[in-house]
């Protein structure tokens, strides 16, 4: 048990240490509101992180999540402004995410274009489409119902936090205990063996990307419904944050292993670290450096632990 959850426990310890130190030295960090803001800011990143974990476990990469989030957000906002009921707005965001993810998946799984290339293309193309379509104008003002999802509190915590937790738990179950979940791991750890074992590897790859897109659609709704406008810059750089969290969370960047719980803890650790810089008065220029150091430490630890450096690198097949 200790070994199986080793990475998660390590991050949890780091998280506890950092939060404990902040709570002791910074009385305002202990505040319930501070905790709530950190959990809420982590919620949508965590949901994107679920999809990214699956993609990376399957031996692939998806760097288009930030652009997909912006597309979902801007179209959802436009629809809400046009008077569509919120459930339809949410459904549209999910459908758009699924559609864009499926496009990524189809190009990667069936046309066999490397995922780094496909998602680099969608990252750029979707951003371009946004500029062309919005001409830089933000979507606003939004109707009063827009902020219901993002700002309603249950038991003291905003709805996005609960939905995020539910999504993480559901995904953890699916990945660990269902056939499709195990197939993702099988595909990532050894694609040849997976194929020989009768797994439709193309189908699994396709669905991993499609679900990643769907989760971006969900994350969009958890994120932008907290604000009274949708800015065209939404989601910029999200891929870096999420991939960092996934790697820090213990997912092997070469595929085959990793958990969504680890990713969620990774997201929390990065979120708390960001806040810690402000609370401790550390120059914000360190933020990027610290994130980079996290990646190096996590990946090095991983490679040393698994002895991967002896194997040839295979990535972005």
């Amino acid at each position, binding site marked *: 048990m200790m070994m199986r959850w080793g990475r998660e426990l390590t991050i949890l310890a780091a998280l506890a240490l950092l939060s404990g130190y902040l709570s002791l030295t*910074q009385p*305002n*960090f202990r*505040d319930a*509101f*501070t905790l709530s*803001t950190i959990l809420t*800011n982590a919620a949508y990143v965590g949901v994107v992180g679920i999809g990214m974990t699956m993609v990376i476990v399957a031996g692939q990469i998806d760097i288009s999540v930030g652009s997909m989030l912006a597309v979902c957000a801007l179209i959802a906002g436009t629809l809400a402004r046009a008077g569509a009921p919120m459930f339809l707005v949410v459904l549209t965001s999910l459908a758009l995410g699924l559609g864009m993810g499926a496009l990524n998946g189809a190009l990667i799984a069936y046309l066999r274009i490397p995922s780094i290339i496909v998602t680099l293309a969608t990252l750029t193309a979707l951003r371009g489409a946004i*500029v062309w379509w919005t*001409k*830089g104008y*933000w979507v*606003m*003002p939004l109707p009063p119902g827009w902020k219901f999802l993002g*700002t309603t509190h249950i038991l003291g915590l905003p709805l996005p936090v609960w939905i995020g937790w539910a999504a993480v738990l559901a995904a953890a179950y699916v990945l660990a205990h269902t056939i499709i979940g195990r197939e993702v791991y099988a595909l990532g750890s050894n694609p040849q063996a997976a194929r020989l074992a009768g797994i439709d590897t193309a189908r699994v790859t396709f669905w991993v990307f499609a679900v990643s897109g769907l989760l971006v659609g969900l994350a969009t709704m958890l*994120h932008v419904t*907290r*604000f*009274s*406008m949708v*800015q065209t*810059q*939404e*989601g*910029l*750089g*999200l891929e870096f944050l999420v991939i960092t969290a996934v790697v820090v969370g213990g997912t092997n960047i070469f595929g085959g292993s990793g958990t969504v719980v680890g990713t969620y803890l990774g997201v929390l650790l990065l*979120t708390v670290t*960001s*806040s810690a810089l*402000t*609370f401790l*008065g550390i120059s*914000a*220029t360190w*933020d990027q450096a610290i994130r980079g150091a996290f990646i190096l430490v996590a990946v090095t630890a991983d490679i040393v632990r698994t002895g991967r450096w002896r194997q040839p690198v295979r990535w972005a097949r």
Partner: protein
Amino acid sequence: MRYIRGFALALTLALLVGLAGPGQAQKALKIFMVPKFTGAAYFAATEKGAKEAVAELKGRGVAIDFLYTGPSVANTDEEIRMIDDLVAQKPDAIIISANDAEALVPVAKKAKAAGIKVITYDADVADPTARQWFVNQGTFTLVGGALVDVVAEQAGNSARFAVVSADPGAFNQNSWIAAMKARVSAKYPKMQLVDIRYGLDKPAESFSVAQDLINKYRGQLDAIIAPTSVALPKVAEAAEQAGLAGKIVVTGLSTPNDMREFVKKGTVKTVVLWNPVDLGYLAVYVAHATITGALKEGMAKQSVRAGRLGTREATAQLNDITAKGPLTLRNVILLGAPFRFTKENIDKFNF
């Protein structure tokens, strides 16, 4: 006799030609205006002001052919190409907002060498000798100072404030911050800039650093300044969600359209920027004065009369504060004190 008649005819012809001479002054002045790109409400506002000035000048008997044209998106190459084409039409003056300060120097020089009066507005070219005048919408000193003045007025002369900026390396952001510091030490010795955080011009990051500031300094922070339009609405949002709307002063640089809701709600009482309508208006008056010779390049102590704006001083040298130390601007005409958008006036603007 025949020679005399011939001479008289020649004289009459010469006289006629001579009379036609002054008539040539009545030929319409060609003034072209090239924004960074068209289609943006901001530049459309400068166009509106420019056309207002053209109409006023026409009303005073000055014939003007005015053309507003530019790239449809911010594109340096396209802008250079368009200016090249416009130069071939030999206008009397061309008013430019440069997409790229360095890249537009050669084409501006070429236009100036062809005898065209070159005026920059909104965004200058890197070399001040490549143009006659830069119509400056607000120096770092003026704009940074105005933000601090807003904080002083709304939160008191001993306010503690923080800044949510864009990128730690952003020159304009850092220059405004340098100007804020200068204003604080010169005018409000008890005021304190307690923290500067960076949202990297990403909405989510801007929001979370604003929250961190509010959470950390809960009750001990009187104001937050966001000199970037991406961060300002997120700072306002963070203040609202912390229950501090109206209790913490939020101000910054943005446009009326982007901040309208927050200004109307009162979360943000004042948004600072300049008035692009006035900017375009002044640019045309400057172009006209340069054509007529009322404004002469390089001469100290001049002024230009700009209709409803009154007179504006044309300065051969103007000192400004930047992130990289003092900067001397050459041959500039200042629009004036930065404009404050408030609940009372914001609906008059659409950009």
